[in-house]
C-alpha cells in the first residue's frame, strides 16, 4: 500500500520532469559566433533580439528575423544579443527580457512576435519597456497595437502575398479544388487564409477551397510544430479532391510537403522561399512560396537605425514595399507568371483590395 503510494509519487515526479523536458525541447540553443566578421571600417551597432518561443533555429518566423540580422552583420559591425521566450512565461517575463536588453545597452531592440505587445497594448511588455527605456528604440514584428515615440511596428500584408499564391493555386488546379493548411487558428494565420481564398476565387469564382487548421491557441498552437499531423491533415484534403495545397503551418510544413509528394500533387510554401530550404526530394512539389520578408523588415530597420533614421509608428511591408510576394525558384510558375504579375500590379494600384479576414461561411 505505502510502497504503491511511493511509486505513484515517483511516477508523478516523472510526469513533471517529462513535462519540463518537453518544454525545454522547445528551446534551441544554436550558438552563433556573436559577430559575423569584424572589418574595422564598419560602424558598430548593438542590436538586441527578443524571440518568441522557438527562437533561432525554428526554420520559420524567428529564423527569418535572424536571417535579417545576419545580413545586417555582413554590412555593419553588429554586436547582437538574442534572447528567447520560454513556454508558459508571464508577460512580466517578456517585459523583463526587453528591459534586460535595454539595460545591457542594446539599441535598437527588436521584439519578434506579437506576444510582446500583450493583450493590453498600453500596458503590455513592450509598452512598459519602452516607457522604462525612453532613449532606446524598439521594433515589434506582426503587431501594430503599441503606440509610443520610440516604438516602430513592422507588419506585413500577408493577405496580399497569399492572394497571389491563391491565384497560382487556382490556375494550376485541375480539379477546381485547392487546399489550405493553417498551423494554428489565430487571426494572423486567418489573414493568410483570407488572401488565399480571395486569390483563388479571383481566378475561378466556382473553385472549392478546403481549409484545415492543425491546432488552436488552446493547445498552445502545437500545429506549428507537428509534421505528422500536417501530413495526415494534408492527406485528408487531397483525398477530398484538393490538388494544390498551401501551408501556413511553420514547422509542420514538411509534413504537408511529404503528403503532397506521396499523392503526386502540388504544394505552396510560406514565409521563405521553401524551394530552397526543403530537402531535395521534396523540391519537385513546391510550385511557389508566399514570401513574408521578415528578414527584409529587420534588415531595413537596423540599417536605418544605423544611419540615424528611426521612424516610429506602423510600417507595413506589403507588395508595394516588397515585404511580401511570391517566389519563382524551380520555374513551376513561369507559365502563369504574367497573370500573377498582373494581379500583383492591380493590388499595388489599389484596384484589388484583399480581405484580411476569411468570409464567414
Amino acid at each position, binding site marked *: 500500500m505505502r510502497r504503491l503510494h511511493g511509486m505513484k*509519487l515517483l511516477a508523478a515526479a516523472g510526469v513533471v520532469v517529462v513535462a519540463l523536458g518537453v518544454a525545454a525541447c522547445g528551446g534551441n540553443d544554436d550558438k552563433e559566433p556573436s559577430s559575423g566578421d569584424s572589418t574595422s571600417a564598419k560602424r558598430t551597432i548593438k542590436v538586441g533580439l527578443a524571440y518568441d518561443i522557438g527562437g533561432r533555429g525554428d526554420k520559420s518566423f524567428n529564423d527569418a528575423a535572424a536571417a535579417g540580422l545576419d545580413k545586417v552583420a555582413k554590412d555593419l559591425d553588429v554586436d547582437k544579443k538574442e534572447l528567447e521566450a520560454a513556454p508558459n512565461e508571464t508577460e512580466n517575463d517578456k517585459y523583463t527580457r526587453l528591459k534586460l536588453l535595454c539595460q545591457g545597452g542594446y539599441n535598437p531592440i527588436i521584439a519578434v512576435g506579437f506576444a510582446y505587445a500583450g493583450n493590453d497594448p498600453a500596458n503590455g511588455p513592450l509598452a512598459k519597456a519602452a516607457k522604462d527605456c525612453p532613449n532606446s528604440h524598439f521594433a515589434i514584428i506582426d503587431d501594430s497595437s503599441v503606440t509610443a515615440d520610440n516604438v516602430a511596428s513592422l507588419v506585413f500584408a500577408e493577405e496580399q502575398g497569399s492572394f497571389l499564391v491563391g491565384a497560382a493555386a487556382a490556375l494550376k488546379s485541375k480539379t477546381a479544388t485547392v487546399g489550405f493548411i493553417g498551423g494554428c487558428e489565430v487571426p494572423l494565420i486567418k489573414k493568410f487564409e483570407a488572401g488565399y481564398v480571395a486569390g483563388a476565387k479571383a481566378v475561378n469564382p466556382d473553385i472549392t477551397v478546403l481549409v484545415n487548421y492543425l491546432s488552436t491557441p488552446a493547445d498552445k498552437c502545437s500545429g506549428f510544430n507537428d509534421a505528422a499531423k500536417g501530413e495526415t491533415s494534408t492527406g485528408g484534403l487531397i483525398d477530398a479532391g484538393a490538388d494544390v495545397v498551401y501551408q501556413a503551418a511553420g514547422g509542420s510544413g514538411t509534413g504537408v510537403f511529404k503528403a503532397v509528394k506521396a499523392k503526386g500533387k502540388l504544394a505552396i510554401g510560406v514565409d521563405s522561399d521553401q524551394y530552397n530550404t526543403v530537402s531535395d526530394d521534396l523540391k519537385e512539389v513546391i510550385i511557389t512560396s508566399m514570401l513574408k520578408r521578415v528578414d527584409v523588415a529587420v534588415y531595413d530597420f537596423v540599417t536605418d537605425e544605423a544611419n540615424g533614421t528611426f521612424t516610429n509608428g506602423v510600417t507595413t511591408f506589403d507588395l508595394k514595399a516588397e515585404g511580401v510576394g511570391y517566389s519563382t525558384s524551380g520555374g513551376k510558375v513561369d507559365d502563369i507568371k504574367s497573370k500573377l504579375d498582373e494581379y500583383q500590379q492591380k493590388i499595388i494600384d489599389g484596384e484589388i483590395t484583399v480581405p484580411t479576414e476569411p468570409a464567414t461561411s
Partner: protein
Amino acid sequence: MRLAGRIDLVGAGTRLLAPVVALLFAFGIFAAVLGVEGTNATDAFSQMFEYAALPDSQVDILNRATFYYLAAVAVAFGFRMGLFNIGVDGQYRLATLMAAALGSASFIGWLPGVLRIILMVIVAMVVGAAWAAIAGLLRATRGVSEVISTIMLNAVAGGLVAFLNTTDHWGTRPEGSNAVSTPLLPKDSWLPNLPLIGGTEAGVFAFSVVAVIVGVGYWFLLERTRFGFDLRATGYSPTVAAASGVDAKRMVVWTMVISGAIAGLVGLPQLFGESHAFTDSVGGIGFTGIAIALLGRSRPVGMALGALLWAFLDRSSLILDLADIPREIVVIMQGSTVLAVVVAYELAKRLSRRMQRRRVGGLVETSQKEQPA
C-alpha cells in the same frame, strides 16, 4: 521531557536533511552539465543570485511564488488523500476565463469594484470546483481514475477556453494586435500591487495575501478539523480509513471540489495584478504546482519554500541567456530537484522509521515482514 516526547527530533532531522541533500544533488547535476558546456557553475550561480537580489527580481519572485503556491496547494490537497489532481491546469484556465469574462461584462458594470472582485473570486472558485467535481464524481460513481479523467478534462477545458476566447464570443482584439483576450477589467477592479520592496516601482500582487490565507487555511483544515483527519487517514490507508468510518466516495468528491476551488484561484493574481484580462498565455502553472507540491511534501511551509525556490530559479534563468549560458540548465535543475527530493524523502522516511524501530527496541521484528504482502 514532555517537549522532547512531542517533537520527534530524529524524524524531523532526517526530513529536513532530505531536501538539503536533494538540492545539493541537483546542484551537482547543474554544475556537471555546465561543466560539459564549459562554464563555471559557481560563476553562473553567483550571477543568478546577484540578479535575483535586485528589487525588481525580488518582487517578481514573490509574485511568481504566489500563483505557484496556490497551484501547489490545490495539487497537495489531493495528494494528502492519495488523489492525483493533474487537472489543476484546466481548472484554473477555465476558472480564470469565466472570472475575467464576467468581470469585464457590461451587464455587471454597475457593481462597485470591490464587490466585483469578490464576485469574480467566488466565480473562479466555483468554476474550478465544478470542473474538478466532474473527475471526483466519475471516480466515486464509476471508478474512473482521476488521473485519466483530469488529464482528459484539461484537454476539454483547453478546447472550451479556445472556443470562448475568440472574437466571435468573449474575446476582443486590440486594433493592430494579434493577441486575443477578454476585454480589460474596469480599473476599479484592478488590485493595486503592494510596494513591499523598496527601490522599484513594481509591487507585489495584493493576491499574495490570499495565498497566505489559503496556506493557513490548508494547514488548519488538514491538521485541526475532523474533515482533515478523515482526508489524511484516507491518504495513509484507504482501507483503514474506511474501517474508521470514513465514507471514501464522499471524501473523493469533496477533496476534488476543494482542490478545484483552490485551483480556481491560481490565475487570479495575474488577472487582478498584471494582465487584467484572460489571455492565451494563461496555462501551464498546474504542472508546476505538481512539482512544487512534491518538493514541499504537501506541507504548507514546505510548499511555500518550494514555490519561492522555483520562482527564484525561473527569474534568475532570465539572466543566464544574457551571459550566454543556456537557460535550459535551469529546467534541468528544476527537474532533477523534484526527482531527487522525492527519492530523498522516501529514503528519509524509511530511515526515520528504522530509527524509531530501534528506539522502540525489543524483539520488534517483523509481524509485518512475515506476512506475505
